[in-house]
């Protein structure tokens, strides 16, 4: 009996301990794809989030309105699934009482999570979601007020790539091959085509395939027949090597251009020499010589032993924007933070200068063009809109 009392007493004390834990910390939620089909994305996001918070806490916390606050992270797993991303957002807001959310990265999770953030009036920044529906309400077509992203959108990317093809690469005739089963890639291909044609270029071939196809010989033969000056391949990195190899086998020696779907270091191992000289757009270049980027890459390497990818860089910038907004807001209040993010201009992030325009969750920033050279991704140009 005594033992039971002791046990109950301990339990009560434990619970009291929990309830008492009311500190001066600011809680920020992170929703990442830690399991599921893109675990590499979630891992990068979590690493960068922890690193960003650690750097602030090591300095004694974030100074807001003359007072220092410690930052506490609440990390939830979305498993790469829409419904789990939504329930994670709900849980962070109602149970953990976070004042802001970073994530989810994939658009499939960011769109449902953004709905919850918007209705709960909690600011949310998705580092990596390029789908317009994340920040724009698809029903009314209006901007959501509380939802932001740290990356550029697909349409923007398609426009910049078309401008790059015609400008820097001087290609007036281009052929496109893309995966019709992916909404993202289809969007990039269509915007590229539209922009190129508006600027007076011609599309000599607009070919498609579906996910899982490995034989592109028919499409490449058709593309060669149109004799383009450039091939645009908005396709996932695992398909790129086969497409480039088959193109080269048919004697297509023209330059190859890709989109951010190429951005995996696995591409280098899969493609070998064939991809040498190809260009693609990216969010971030790890070998940029800008001091901010260099420090970020070195710190990340020291902590995790690997080169940060674009998700890590964008997550890091999301936190940077969040901290900057908190400082400007002068108080850790969701409404004030949201208003402050909307007024951020020329934020020097590791993925470039970021500017938000009043009433828009989509930043103005430059697109990084990388070139594959000697088995490495080399920085080639920053293209400003």
């Amino acid at each position, binding site marked *: 009996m005594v033992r039971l009392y002791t046990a109950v007493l301990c339990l009560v004390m434990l619970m009291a301990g929990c309830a008492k834990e009311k500190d001066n910390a600011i809680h920020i939620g992170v929703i990442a794809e830690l399991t599921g089909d893109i675990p590499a994305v979630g891992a990068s996001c979590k690493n960068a989030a922890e690193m960003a918070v650690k750097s602030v806490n090591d300095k004694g916390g974030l100074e807001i309105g003359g007072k220092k606050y410690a930052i506490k992270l609440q990390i939830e797993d979305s498993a790469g699934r829409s419904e789990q991303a939504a329930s994670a957002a709900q849980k962070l807001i109602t149970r953990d009482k976070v004042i802001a959310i970073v994530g989810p990265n994939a658009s499939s999770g960011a769109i449902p999570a953004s709905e919850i953030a918007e209705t709960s009036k909690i600011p949310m920044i998705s580092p990596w979601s390029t789908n317009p529906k994340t920040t724009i309400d698809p029903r009314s077509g209006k901007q959501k007020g509380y939802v932001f992203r740290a990356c550029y959108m697909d349409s923007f990317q398609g426009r910049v790539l078309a401008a790059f093809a015609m400008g820097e690469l001087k290609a007036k005739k281009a052929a496109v091959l893309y995966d*019709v089963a992916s909404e993202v890639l289809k969007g990039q291909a269509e915007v590229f085509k539209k922009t190129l044609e508006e600027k007076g270029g011609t599309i000599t071939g*607009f*070919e*498609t*395939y*579906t996910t*899982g*196809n*490995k*034989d592109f*010989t*028919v*499409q490449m*033969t*058709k593309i060669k*027949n149109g004799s383009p000056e450039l091939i645009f391949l908005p396709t996932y990195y*695992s*398909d790129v*090597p*086969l497409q480039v*190899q*088959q193109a080269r*086998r*048919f*004697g297509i020696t023209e330059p190859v251009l890709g989109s951010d779907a190429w951005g995996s270091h*696995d591409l280098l*191992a*899969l*493609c*070998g020499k064939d991809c040498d000289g190809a260009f693609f757009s990216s969010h971030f270049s790890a070998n940029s010589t800008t001091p901010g980027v260099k420090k970020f890459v070195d710190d990340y390497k020291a902590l995790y032993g690997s080169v940060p990818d674009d998700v890590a860089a964008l997550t890091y910038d999301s936190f940077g924007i969040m901290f900057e907004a908190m400082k400007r807001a002068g108080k850790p209040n969701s409404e004030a933070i949201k208003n402050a993010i909307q007024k951020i201009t020329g934020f020097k992030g590791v993925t470039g200068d970021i500017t938000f325009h009043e009433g828009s969750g989509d930043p103005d920033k430059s697109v990084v063009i990388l070139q594959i050279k000697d088995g490495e991704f080399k920085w080639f140009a920053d293209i400003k809109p």
Partner: protein
Amino acid sequence: MVYISQQLLNMLQLGSIYAVIALGYTMVYGVLSLINFAHGDLFMIGAFLCFIATAKLHLPFVVVLVVAAIGTAAIGMAVERLAYRPLRDAPKVSAIITALGVGVFIENFTLALSPYPRHVPEMLPNVSWNLGGLTVSSIQGVIVVLSVLLMVGLDFIVRKTRYGMAMRALAWDIKTLPLMGVSVNAIIALTFAIGAGFGGAAGTMYAMAFPVIDPYMGIMIGWKAFIAAVVGGIGSIRGAMLGGYILGAVETFAAVALPSTYRDFIAFTLLLILLIFRPNGILGVPKTLKV
């Protein structure tokens, strides 16, 4: 003209691979009336064995081909022994569900070992010849010639040897065959070995032509080869070969004549129409089906 010839070459390469895989479906169906839905995944295993033999063991091409074919054949026999033989007297539906299950098992097993796409190094030096604008690569040549050799070899085995005779007898009457002193189990195991071995050989050829492989690569190509087998007349060996080339041709020329988005749509519509008029396939014979 050059353009059309180039597309004809593409068609020959694609059709050859379909035909060799379709043979695996048709052989198993011929003797057991079982649709081995795991066959596409055995093809994938063949490609991965080829990857191990080239990237890790650095074996020459002929050895790689033999290793992949024999390895896949062994796995095919194991699948038959462990998954299909216990169900031989069960309703055919159970066997088909098992086949689907085995396929998913093989995929996920490979996924657990190696989830990322892999690059298969070059096995043969890739030379391209330019014949008046027509680009012919050595890989295309090897694939087409090798496929034809495999098919001729199989046709010979089935039509001219004692084992082939036993297979045909088994397809004819599984109840009477044991009375003639033939071991049904041995012949079925042999059939699975040959069928899976062809899948392994096709996997190697595919990995040679399209050297990025992943655990899901067998699904779509497996379905297409199955359809090729049905079009040719499932159970008929010459039908499977014919079906492979027909599907390759329809797919290629659908993409030539129309935007490539319609490729599969047109190809499969034509095949459906063909099946309306020839429900047993081109070379198939009407037979009462259990499933």
